[in-house]
C-alpha cells in the first residue's frame, strides 16, 4: 500500500518535472550549446484548424496526435496516447512544415564551384553547416525541410542535399537519405557569365553554347557508362586496363539512367524548351525548373514533359532574362497541370514563405489550400520526399507548424515548429532564451564596469599614461566593443550595413546570390 502510494507520488513528481522541463526548455543562440529538443513519446494538439495539404482538406476543431515522431491520427476528440504532452491549440492553425525546394541557407560561402563548366562531381552535403543561425531563424518561420542547391555559375553544377532542419545535429544527420539524388543545372545569363567580370572567360558565352555543352557532357557520360558496363569483371579484368573512374561523368550517367534528377535554374522559355528537347533525346525527364520565370509561357509543354516548376512568386526585373517574370506564373503553371511549388532562394525570404503562398491567391486566385500545398506537399513531391513529409497524414513524419492564426495571413505568426515530433522552435522558449541572454549581458557589463572602478581606485598601480583610453570604460565604448569584432560589410543602397558576429557560412549577399551566381 505504501509502496503503491510512493509509486504514485513518484509518477506524479516525474510528470510534474517533465512538464516543467518541457515548459522551461529554451534553446541557446549557439546550436552547439542547445540541447536537442526531446522527441516526446507522444504529443496531442487539441482543437486546432488543421490544413492537411492532403485529400482530407482543411479540418476544423480537430486534434492531432503524434507518436514517436510520426503522426498517429487526425480527428475529432482523439484519445490521448499514454504519456502524451497535451498542447491546447484552440484558435490556432496547424499546417505541415514548409518545404523550401531552393535554398543555400546553410552552405553560404560554399554555394558555387564555378571553376569548370561542369562540376557534377561536387557534393553539397560536404559543406553543410548544421549550426547555421539561418536554420534556427527559418524554423521560426515554419520551415522544416530545405533543398540545399549548388549555385548556377555553371551549366552542370554540383549534387544537391535535401536536409531537415535538425539544427545542431551532425551534418550527415540532417540529410534525408531517402530523397531522390539530384543535381543542379543552370541555363541563361549565369552560366554564360553575363553579369560579372571574368578575367578568364570560359565557354560558353551564349545560350546555344549552354545547350551544346550539356549535350556533349551527356554523350560523354553515356560513353563512359557504356565503357564501365562493358568492362570485364572478375578474372576477365586481370588482363585489361579498366576505364579510369570519373566522378563527374559517373554523376551525369546517373541522370541518364534515371537515378538522379535534374533541378535546373532557368528563366526563359527558349532555354527551357531547349533543355527539355535535349533531355528527351536521351530519354530523361527533368525533375524541376528552378525559378522558372517564363514557365507560364510553356506550361503545356512542361506538363507534357512532366517537369515540375519551382518558382519565385514575384521577383522580376533584376536581370534582362527576368523581364517577363510575372507573379501569375505559379497560378498559370498550376492551371496547366504542372507540379508547382514556391521557393525562397534567400535566407530572409525563407522566413515568410506563407506570405509568398498568399500571393498565389492574390495573383491568379489559386485556392488557399492549393496555395499552401505550393510550399508543402508540392515541393516535397518535387524532391520525392512526399512519402515522408509535406502533408499531415497518418504515418508521416511529425513535421508541423502551429500558427496563431490563418497561415496565409500577414497578421499571423509561427508559435511552434516541430520536426520529427521534436519542438525545434517555440516562441515562448525563444523569448526565455533572449531574456536569459540579456541578463547575462547586463551581468557581464556590470562586471566590466566594476573591474574598471577597481583599476581606478588602485593607487599603487602605475598610471597607464601612454594609454589613450578613457579612465573608465563608458557604456558606449563597451557597447561599441561588444559590437565590434570582425564586422562584415555589405553595401546596402548607399550606406553600409554592418553584420556582426556571423560566420561566413551564414552571410547572405543578395548581390552575390542574385546577380552573379545563384
Amino acid at each position, binding site marked *: 500500500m505504501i509502496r503503491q502510494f510512493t509509486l504514485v507520488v513518484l509518477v506524479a513528481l516525474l510528470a510534474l518535472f517533465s512538464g516543467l522541463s518541457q515548459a522551461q526548455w529554451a534553446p541557446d543562440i549557439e546550436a552547439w550549446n542547445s540541447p536537442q529538443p526531446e522527441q516526446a513519446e507522444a504529443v496531442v494538439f487539441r482543437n486546432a484548424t488543421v490544413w492537411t495539404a492532403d485529400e482530407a482538406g482543411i479540418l476544423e476543431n480537430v486534434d492531432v496526435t503524434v507518436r514517436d515522431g510520426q503522426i498517429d491520427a487526425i480527428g475529432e476528440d482523439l484519445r490521448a496516447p499514454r504519456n502524451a504532452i497535451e498542447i491546447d491549440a484552440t484558435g490556432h492553425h496547424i499546417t505541415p512544415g514548409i518545404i523550401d525546394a531552393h535554398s543555400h541557407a546553410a552552405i553560404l560561402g560554399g554555394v558555387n564551384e564555378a571553376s569548370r563548366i561542369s562540376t557534377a562531381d561536387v557534393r553539397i552535403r560536404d559543406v553543410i553547416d548544421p549550426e547555421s543561425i539561418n536554420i534556427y531563424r527559418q524554423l*521560426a518561420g515554419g520551415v522544416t525541410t530545405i533543398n540545399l542547391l549548388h549555385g548556377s555559375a555553371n551549366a552542370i553544377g554540383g549534387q544537391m542535399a535535401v536536409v531537415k532542419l535538425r539544427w545542431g545535429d551532425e551534418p550527415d544527420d540532417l540529410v534525408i537519405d531517402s530523397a531522390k539524388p539530384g543535381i543542379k543545372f543552370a541555363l541563361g545569363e549565369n552560366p554564360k557569365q553575363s553579369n560579372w567580370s571574368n578575367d578568364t572567360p570560359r565557354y560558353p558565352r551564349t545560350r546555344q553554347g549552354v545547350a551544346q555543352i550539356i549535350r556533349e557532357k551527356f554523350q560523354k557520360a553515356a560513353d563512359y557508362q557504356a565503357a564501365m558496363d562493358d568492362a570485364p569483371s572478375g578474372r576477365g579484368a586481370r588482363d585489361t586496363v579498366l576505364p579510369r573512374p570519373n566522378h563527374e561523368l559517373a554523376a551525369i550517367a546517373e541522370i541518364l539512367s534515371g537515378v538522379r534528377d535534374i533541378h535546373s535554374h532557368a528563366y526563359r522559355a527558349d532555354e527551357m524548351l531547349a533543355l527539355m528537347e535535349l533531355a528527351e533525346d536521351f530519354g530523361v525527364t527533368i525533375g524541376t525548373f528552378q525559378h522558372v520565370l517564363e514557365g507560364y509561357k510553356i506550361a503545356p509543354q512542361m506538363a507534357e514533359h512532366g517537369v515540375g516548376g519551382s518558382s519565385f512568386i514575384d521577383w522580376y526585373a533584376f536581370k534582362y532574362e527576368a523581364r517577363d517574370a510575372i507573379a501569375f506564373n505559379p497560378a498559370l503553371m498550376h492551371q496547366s497541370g504542372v507540379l508547382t511549388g514556391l521557393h525562397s532562394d534567400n535566407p530572409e525570404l525563407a522566413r*515568410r514563405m506563407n*506570405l509568398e503562398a498568399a500571393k498565389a491567391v492574390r495573383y491568379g486566385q489559386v485556392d488557399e489550400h492549393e496555395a499552401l500545398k505550393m510550399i508543402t506537399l508540392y515541393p516535397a513531391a518535387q524532391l520525392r520526399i512526399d512519402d515522408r513529409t509535406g502533408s499531415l497524414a497518418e504515418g508521416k513524419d511529425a513535421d508541423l507548424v502551429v500558427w496563431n492564426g490563418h497561415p496565409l495571413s500577414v*497578421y499571423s*505568426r509561427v508559435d511552434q515548429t516541430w520536426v520529427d515530433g521534436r519542438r525545434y522552435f517555440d516562441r515562448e522558449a525563444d523569448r526565455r532564451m533572449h531574456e536569459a541572454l540579456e541578463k547575462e549581458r547586463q551581468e557581464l557589463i556590470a562586471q566590466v564596469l566594476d573591474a574598471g572602478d577597481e583599476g581606478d581606485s588602485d593607487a599603487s598601480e602605475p598610471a597607464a599614461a601612454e594609454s589613450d583610453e578613457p579612465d573608465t570604460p563608458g557604456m558606449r565604448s563597451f557597447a561599441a566593443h561588444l559590437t565590434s569584432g570582425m564586422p562584415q560589410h555589405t553595401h546596402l543602397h*548607399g*550606406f553600409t*550595413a*554592418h*553584420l556582426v558576429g556571423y560566420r561566413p557560412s551564414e552571410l547572405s549577399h543578395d548581390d552575390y546570390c542574385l546577380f552573379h551566381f545563384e
Partner: protein
Amino acid sequence: MTTTASSTSSEPTMNPNKVNTLKFLLLLLALAVLPASAWAKTLVLTGATVHPVSSESIDDATVVIEEGLIAAIGTDLEWSADAEVIDLAGLHLFPGFVHPATQLGLVEISSVAGTVDTSEMGSINAALRAEVAINHDSYILPNTIAGGVLTAHIMPDGGLIQGTSAVVNLDGWSWQEMVIRTPVGMHLVYPAAAVDDENNEDLKTINRVLDLARHHHAASLAAAEGDAAPPPRNDQLEALAPLLNGDQPLYLRANRYDVMEAALDWADEQGFENIVLMANSDVQYLADRLARDDVPVILRNVYALPTRRWEPYDMAFVAPARLAEAGVRFAIADSGGGMDIANARNLPFQAGSAAAHGLDKADALKSVTLWPAEILGVGDQLGSIEVGKRASLFAATGDALEPMSRIERVWIDGEEYDLSRDHGRDLYPRYRERNATMQKR
C-alpha cells in the same frame, strides 16, 4: 455619417445647382485648355467599405470626387444626375500607399548598367535632383501602381551629400507632370567610420562643404544688398542654401545605432532642426531619444535579418511596434534599392508583418499611408481619404495589407488607371487562354 472638410462652410456636392455651375465652368475650362481632361464629370464611388485611415472605416459608403479631389464622403450623399457612378459593392476603398523612400523610375533592369540611374559618383552631389531622371514610362511603375502604391518619395543616392528628393505620382506623361512636391529634402549619409574617429576624412569633407556653403550664402546675401561683389557661381554650394536656411529638411541616413546617435549629435552641432532619420531596425535602440526630440523616422526594411547574430529572429519585425510604443513618428519603407525597387508593390506587406509582431493594425495601415505623407510634407494632399485631398485611391477585395487581397481598381487624382498596363495583368489572360487552347488540342 458624413465627413467634410472643416475649412469649407458649404458642401458643393450636396447642392446639384452648384455642382452644375461648377461643371459648366469646368467644361469651359476643359474646352479651352484641357480637351482631354477626365475631370469633366463628377465621379461617385458607391457601395464600398471606405477606409479613410484618418478616421473609422465606414460600411457601404460613398466617395464623391470632383476635379481630381475628394469632395465628400458619407453614407447619405446626393449627386447630380450626370455624375459617373461606379458601384463598388463588396470592395474596400483605401487611400493609395505612399512609399516613403525608393528609387522607382531610376532603374529598369538592375543588371543592365545602361538602365540604371540610381547612384552618382563623387562625395558631394548636393545639386543632383533625383526626379529629373525618372523614366515616366518605366514598365515597373504600372506594376507598382497595380499593387496600390500610387505615390512615392524618389531619392537620390551616391556619395555623402547626395542631392534632393521629390514626392511624385507614379503615373504621368512626364516626370514634370508626376512631381507633387520638390525638393523634399537634402539627403546626407553620416559616415559610419566617424563614430570612433573624430578625424574621419568623410566627416571633415561634409563639414568643410557645409562651411563653404555658409560662407557662399553669406557672400551672396551681402552681394544682394550691394555690399560686395557676388561670389563665383557654385552649383553644389548654392544647392545647400535651403538646407542651411532651415527651409529644407535634412534626410539623414545612418544604419547602426551608434552611427545614428553620432549622426543626431552632429546634426545638433550643425544646428539642423528639421531632420528626418532614414534608418534600419537598429533605430529601435534610440526610440526614446527620437520621441523626445520629435525626429521622424523612415524605417527601412521590416523584412530584414537581425544585424547581429545574437539578436532575436524578429528584431526587425518588432521595430515598428517599439517605435510606436515610444511615441516616435515613423513610416515603413523597404530598402529602397536592389530588388526592392521593382517590388515596391510589396511595401504594404511589410506593414502587415509589423502588425503580426505587435504594431496596432490601424497604425500599420497609417505607417504606409498617412504617416509617410505627413513626414514628407504632403499630408495635406495625400495619405487618407479626406475631403480636399487628392483622389488617389484603390478598391481591393479585402484588407489592403493582406497579400491574399486583390486590388481591382485604381484612381490617381480622380482618373481611373488602366490596370491592364501592369505587365502581369497584361500577360496573364493572354497566356491563360493560349495554354488552355493548346491543351484542348
